[in-house]
């Protein structure tokens, strides 16, 4: 998968975010999203290591070892930003006060189950805030390429990888399409970049319904 495709996924995911929303961005594709947010997007970025109001990457002069995001990258903050401790930060997440979490996944099931932290047979030694975010955020947007680098299809009838949480995904954005979980059902709501339903079906083992007509323009 090319960087261009990943950027396209990020660009489409960026359009899911509404002014005023508090958004937590995971590592990988989600971290490309800020580049696609318009200047007046009005989105507040939350990082679970204890900051609300994350700004752009710092210049050399702005670098501060005490100011990082959850991916441990140096960041800046915008006016009106706040710092808080990890218990308070996760209280925001777990209490339902973060509007959107955008994150990558290894598999998403037809019921919205997410597997994004562990591969069977490998070490399961790092979970970080993944489980907290997918359970606590009001809306969970999964951004991922439709197949793994090994060719495995990722939108599946049932997750076979260790679960992060059940029924947690609300939206899935791949390079081909947008899926939405509505009424407990996986629906294909938008085709991207000239993809066809057949293109999507070819890389999707989960059953899904077509709901293209009802997709709202945002």
């Amino acid at each position, binding site marked *: 998968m090319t960087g261009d495709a990943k950027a396209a996924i990020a660009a489409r995911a960026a359009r899911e975010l*509404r*002014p*005023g*929303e*508090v958004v937590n961005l995971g590592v990988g594709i989600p971290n490309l999203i800020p580049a696609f947010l318009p200047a007046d997007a*009005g989105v*507040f970025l*939350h990082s679970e290591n204890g900051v*609300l*109001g994350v700004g752009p990457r710092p210049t050399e002069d702005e670098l501060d070892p005490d100011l990082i995001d959850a991916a441990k990258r140096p960041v800046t*903050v915008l*006016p*009106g*930003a*706040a*710092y*808080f401790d990890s218990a308070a930060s*996760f*209280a*925001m*997440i*777990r*209490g*339902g*006060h*973060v*509007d959107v*979490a955008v994150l990558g996944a290894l598999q998403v099931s037809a019921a*919205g189950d997410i597997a994004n932290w562990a591969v069977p047979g490998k070490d399961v030694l790092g979970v970080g805030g993944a489980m907290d975010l*997918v*359970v*606590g*955020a*009001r*809306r*969970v947007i999964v951004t991922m390429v439709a197949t793994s680098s090994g060719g495995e299809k990722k939108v599946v009838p049932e997750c076979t990888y260790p679960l992060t*949480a*059940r*029924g*947690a995904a*609300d939206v899935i954005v791949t390079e081909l399409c947008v899926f939405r979980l509505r009424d407990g059902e996986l629906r294909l709501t938008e085709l991207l970049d000239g993809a066809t339903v057949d293109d999507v079906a070819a890389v999707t083992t989960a059953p899904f319904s077509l709901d293209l007509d009802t997709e709202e323009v945002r």
Partner: protein
Amino acid sequence: SAVGGNRTVPGAMTASRLVSAAEAVARVHSGDTVMVGGFGLVGAPLTLIDALVDESDATDLTIVSNNIGEPGRGLGRLLRQGRIRRGISSYFTSNPEAVAAVNAGELEATLVPQGTFAEAIRAAGAGIAGFFTPVGAGTLLAEGKEERVIGGVAHVLEEPIRADVALVYAARADELGNLWYRRTAQNFNPAMATAARVTVAEAGELVPLGGLEPESIHTPHLYVDHLVRSA
């Protein structure tokens, strides 16, 4: 997400967060549970309470507040109007009219130890569905609650205390709704700001964006839906 914690209205744009007290209390509907900050009247959102008394018809309310005001002051005014069906508090006794209303069968009282009260409100804001505490175990206030011996000590399972609307007071707010509380006027306000679907903050003073030290913001703006200036 699989689980709904508290569902506040998505944060509005900056400009519209500041509203009149009357507009703010219009978010309160009959039958609602309303949290009101303050320890006695210190740190109580008096402008919002007065607006609720004078400019709202919402009745049959459940009030979550450490006290039910004082006679004819703060929530004591709402009590006199007969609009409070139930109180959840640690100390009704500070308003003799609240005690009289309970005895007359006009006010349903749920008494909670003050620390459990604060912790249960925090729990609601933090997505905690229940917690075990030794406080209250074996007393009248544990009646009807699940008990469990943990480490040889009796504990009681307490549930979170949630609300539809929280009315809080902060000495300072910036235009996004970040809040800073002064001295002992802080009390229950920060926890309550996290525990309701809709949080209205009354601010004594509005400061420009950046006017609050980022490390010293007590309530980050994601908890605040509406801002009202103190009258």
